[in-house]
Structures are given as structure tokens and as C-alpha cells.
């Protein structure tokens, strides 16, 4: 059998190479289908990885608790408009939710910051010292707040890269410099490393952090001491996130004295939820494009079937001769199946190359990240094999079932 198979493959390749245009046109559907699959999956994977990287900039296993919405005469304002979360909630949670590794809080406001003749409008966060470690921020220069800074509500600030770029001359050393936030003089003690865009799409480096106590007493001004914009927490492991969310919910409901029929006056989001939300968009797109690719592969397969049916008719006499000299049905069947598979695998291989080139071009031209995974390439190759077998079976079977006498007599 090996000699037979080898010769059959050689014969198939020779027969196909005789009719290059026809073979090429037949393969086109498979080429486009496989190429589309490879390119789409690469773009999809690239987008997913980019989103994951963005989500990762939030920190590690982060939980964000936002205050609930206010309702005034039936009109509900946006999330976080109501003052329902306080610093003491945060401290309480640390005791009542044992799965939490750390808790922190922050409160923000947009204000004008001035350095010499330059000014910049920026989000200023008053934060607990734990905030930076929960969010995995690291320092490029300088350091964080000391306990003394917090206790004395010192006028010290940590600034992000975008702020550095906009407020300081190139080469000017930000650490130690004096800036004015809402006309209050502050000393810069640290510069953060860049995090880039957040999963929601805003610039995470366009930010200034000051101690929570300082923000409350000297900058923001508040009518309700201890109120926070959001509570932050983190867990040791990803698996702990979901149970930790339940612990937080129960603890806060008790602390806020909510009755069973009352809704939560806060919202809890985890890093995983946010990641899923973002991935969902790119997945929908991938599924849609993959179904287009599948249709293209189907059409390609039908093309192969069609051309093989033509080939069987054209070569009826040849089939008759082969049968007369002793070809069994399975020999004829295998011969045509191999022709189908050769077509589809060749088309698949070209399609893989086209897809990889297409993905690369997308990266170069559109700047989208793409990832070509080996498993996708192998899957595409196997899929084209299956398409060849599936759509080759009918014509091959038709050829194998020919009556040798009629086939020999065919004009």
C-alpha cells in the first residue's frame, strides 16, 4: 500500500499541476477562508492580549467599591454621586472580610496645578497609603508618603508621567520641586512609572496623588469628613475575588443597616469583571468574523467538490481503464480523495501564509497588535484537511461506484 499511496499522491499533484489555473481557482475559496481565519484570530488574540495588559495595569486582584447612586424626585444620578462610603467602612472591611489582603480608599477632584509659568488641569487623588500598593504603582523616582505625612496632612504630592511631561521642562527634576495645587504649595516627593491607557480608555498617568488627610483638610474641602470616592481592596489569589465580593457585600449591608428588601447602596466591581467586559467586545467581533471565514471555507469546499465532479466526468474512461487493469473501488476512492485533500491542503497552506502576512500587515499599517499562535495554524491546517475529505468524499465515491464497462465505453 505505501507504494500505491506515494504514487497516488505524485499522480494527484501532477494532475493538479496540469491545470494550474483551474486548481488555483478551486483553491481560492479555501485560501480566502483559511487566510481570513488566521488573520482574524491573530487580530482577535492580539486585541485580547492588549486588553488583558490594560486590565493588568489596574493592579493585582483588585476590587473596587463605589458608592451608590442618589435618587432625587425619581431621577437617579450617576454611580458614586451619593456619599455612602467612608474611611471607617474601609477600616471595618479589613476586619470583617478576612479574604482581603489590603484595603484602601481614594477621593478625587479635577483641579489646576501650576509649576512656575506652566499650568495643567489634572485629576488629583487623595489616597490612603495602601492605595498605591493595591494598584501596583511603582516609582520611577522618589518615593511614597510617610506615616508622618499622613498624620500631619503634609503638603506632599506624587505625580504621574503625563503630569511630568506637561508641567516640567525637559531635563527639569520633578522630585523636590514645588508645585501649587489649587494655589496650595506642594512638594513633589515621587514620580510614578507610566501605566498607559486604562481598560476604560483614559490616561492613567495624568494623575497626582496626595495624602487623603491633606486632600480632605487643605485642598478639596468637604462637608462630610471621612467620605470617600471609592474603596479599593485586593485579595491574595484570583480565586478569592468572588467570595471576597460576597464578604464585602454582607459586611457593608450590615454596617449600612440595610433591610432585606433594600438594594445595595454601593457597587462592587472586580478586575476580572472589568476584564471580561472588555474581552466580550473583541470576542463578539472574533466570533462574527470567524463565522464569515467558516462560510468562506464552506464555499471553498463546495468549489472543490464541484471541480472534482467535473474531473470524475472528464476522466470516466481513465477510471474505466484503471478498473479494467485491477483497481478496486477503494483505490479509485482513495485516488480522488487524495486529489481533494491535496487541493484543500495546498489551499490551506497558502491561506495560512496569506493570513500570517495579512496579520503582519495589519500590525504594520493599522498598528493593531496581532498574535499568531501555533495552535491556530495547526487547527487551520487540520480544518482544511477535513474540508478536503468531507467535500471530496461524494465525488470520490461517485467515481468508485462507476460500472467499469460503462466507464470504458464513455465518450
Amino acid at each position: 500500500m505505501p507504494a500505491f499511496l506515494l504514487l497516488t499522491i505524485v499522480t494527484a499533484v501532477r494532475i493538479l499541476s496540469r491545470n494550474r489555473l483551474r486548481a488555483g481557482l478551486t483553491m481560492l475559496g479555501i485560501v480566502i477562508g483559511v487566510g481570513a481565519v488566521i488573520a482574524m484570530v491573530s487580530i482577535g488574540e492580539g486585541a485580547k492580549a492588549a486588553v488583558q495588559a490594560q486590565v493588568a495595569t489596574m493592579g493585582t486582584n483588585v476590587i473596587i467599591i463605589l458608592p451608590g447612586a442618589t435618587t432625587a424626585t425619581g431621577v437617579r444620578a450617576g454611580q458614586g454621586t451619593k456619599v455612602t462610603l467612608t474611611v471607617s467602612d474601609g477600616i471595618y472591611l479589613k476586619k470583617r472580610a478576612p479574604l482581603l489582603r489590603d484595603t484602601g480608599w481614594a477621593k478625587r477632584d479635577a483641579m489646576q496645578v501650576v509649576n512656575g509659568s506652566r499650568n495643567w488641569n489634572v485629576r488629583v487623588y487623595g489616597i490612603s497609603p495602601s492605595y498605591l500598593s493595591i494598584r501596583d504603582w511603582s516609582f520611577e523616582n522618589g518615593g511614597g508618603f510617610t506615616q508622618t505625612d499622613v498624620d500631619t496632612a503634609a503638603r506632599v504630592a506624587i505625580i504621574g508621567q503625563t503630569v511630568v511631561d506637561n508641567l516640567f521642562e525637559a531635563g527639569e527634576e520633578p522630585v523636590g520641586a514645588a508645585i501649587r495645587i489649587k494655589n496650595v504649595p506642594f512638594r513633589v516627593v515621587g514620580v510614578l512609572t507610566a501605566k498607559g491607557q486604562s481598560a476604560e480608555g483614559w490616561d492613567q498617568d495624568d494623575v497626582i496623588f496626595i495624602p487623603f488627610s491633606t486632600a480632605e483638610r487643605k485642598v478639596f474641602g468637604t462637608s462630610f469628613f471621612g467620605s470617600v470616592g471609592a474603596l479599593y481592596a485586593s485579595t491574595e489569589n484570583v480565586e478569592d475575588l468572588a467570595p471576597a465580593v460576597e464578604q464585602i457585600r454582607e459586611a457593608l449591608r450590615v454596617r449600612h443597616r440595610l433591610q432585606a428588601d433594600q438594594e445595595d447602596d454601593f457597587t462592587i466591581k472586580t478586575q476580572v469583571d472589568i476584564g471580561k467586559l472588555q474581552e466580550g467586545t473583541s470576542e463578539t467581533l472574533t466570533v462574527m468574523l470567524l463565522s464569515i471565514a467558516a462560510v468562506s471555507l464552506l464555499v471553498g469546499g463546495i468549489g472543490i467538490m464541484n471541480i472534482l465532479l467535473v474531473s470524475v466526468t472528464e476522466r470516466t474512461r481513465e477510471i474505466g481503464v484503471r478498473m479494467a487493469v485491477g483497481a478496486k473501488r477503494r483505490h479509485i476512492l482513495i485516488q480522488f480523495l487524495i486529489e481533494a485533500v491535496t487541493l484543500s491542503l495546498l489551499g490551506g497552506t497558502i491561506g495560512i501564509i496569506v493570513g500570517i502576512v495579512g496579520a503582519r500587515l495589519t500590525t504594520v499599517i493599522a498598528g493593531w497588535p496581532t498574535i499568531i499562535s501555533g495552535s491556530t495554524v495547526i487547527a487551520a491546517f487540520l480544518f482544511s484537511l477535513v474540508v478536503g475529505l468531507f467535500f471530496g468524499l461524494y465525488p470520490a465515491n461517485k467515481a468508485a461506484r462507476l460500472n467499469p464497462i460503462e466507464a470504458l465505453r464513455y465518450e
Partner: protein
Amino acid sequence: MGEINGRQPASLIHCEDLWKVYRLGDVEVHALRGLNLTIEQGEFVAIMGSSGSGKSTLMNMLGCLDQPTNGHYWLNGVDVARLRADELADIRNRQIGFVFQSFNLIARTSALENAQLPLFYRGLPLREQRALAAAALERVGLKGREQHYPTQLSGGQQQRVAIARALVTRPSLLLADEPTGNLDTESSREIMTILDRLNKEEGITVILVTHEPDIAAYASREVVIKDGQVLTDRHTKLNEPSNAAGI
């Protein structure tokens, strides 16, 4: 019905009460009507008859391309009427060589590969296939033409490739269906000389269908078919195995 009557030695071909009925729409066509024929190993038989006489059906039957509706056909003692399609293919591959009127070579395939075709289905090692096919081409005088395509060969040469293809498996039976029908006189003579030599020198049984008397003259026995039965059956040369004519 199918006893072998203790006929010794067993004949190469023994047909007994062979019937073939086709159904064309509502019409039943009786192509063979109880035909009896026996052919011994080493004979050179010409089968003649007008079109519609049933001689093509008989050739298909003898070549194991078709099976009888009724009756028995023993080839080398095996009742072919009872075999399955794959077993018939095996018999065609190992015991029978075909030569057709229109050569039926595979287009755009070299003479060597055409001659190699039956071995292809036998799963012999490639080297052996090549060697046997080359030897077969040499036997029909086509040494040096191995790599020629059918379109590069004359009609007579193409038919010789077809004979090489039929010979390559060393069959006991060679069936030639109007082998000279598409050839000029000179090529016809060449082809018939080769068939005659194969019969005389190698003892291959040759059965020839023709309607040309001068071609039939190469054979040593002439069987005329009419209306699906043997009309006449006579020996035309004396130097042949001297058993009785078919029953």
C-alpha cells in the same frame, strides 16, 4: 447445474449456459442466451460476429468486467459468477490483460507509467514496478520510448504500450477487443505479429474480437457468435491443442 464433469485437465475458460439479460426501460435485452464455450490454455481464438450478436457482452464476461445473469463461467477453475467486485478486480489484475480498440492509454502519462498501471494496484515496490514495466515495453519493441507521452507515439506504438500494459502482470489470458480497429494495415500487421508471438512463444492464451477476416486469420480457432449463442466454432490451423471444440 454447475458440475465440472470431470473434464481433465481443467480448461482455462469454461462457460456453461451463460445468460445475460439487460433491462433497457421496459424492454428486456437478451445479450447472451445460454452460451457454451470452452477455451484451453494456449489457444489463439478469434471471436467474430455482427454488432448486436453479443460478442462484446461475451468479452466483458470473459474479462470479468461483468457477471452473467445466469449460468457459470469458470476461469482457471474458479466460478467467476459468484465473486464480489473486489475479487473480480483481483482476477483482472492478476490473470487477464486487456487490449482495447482505442488503446485507452492514460493521457499525459509516460509509456512507462502506463505500462506500470496494473502493478500500481498490486502494491509492488516502486523499483520493481519500473523494472517490470520497462521489460514489458522491451518485449513489444518500445525500448527507449519509456518517457514518451501517448501523444508523442503513433497509433501502432500506442497500441504496443497497451499490450505492454496487458503483459506486465504476466497474465494467462489476453483479451483484445478489435485491437487493430483504429490502425492502418502496416501497424495492424505489427500488432498481430506481436500477439501471435506472445501466443506461440510464451503460451499466452489470446482471445481476439474482430470483424476483419484477415485479422481473424492470425488465430487458430474461429468462433462466430449470433443472437447470443455460438453459431460456428472451428479450428483454422492444425498446430493447435487438439481438444474438441466448445460444447
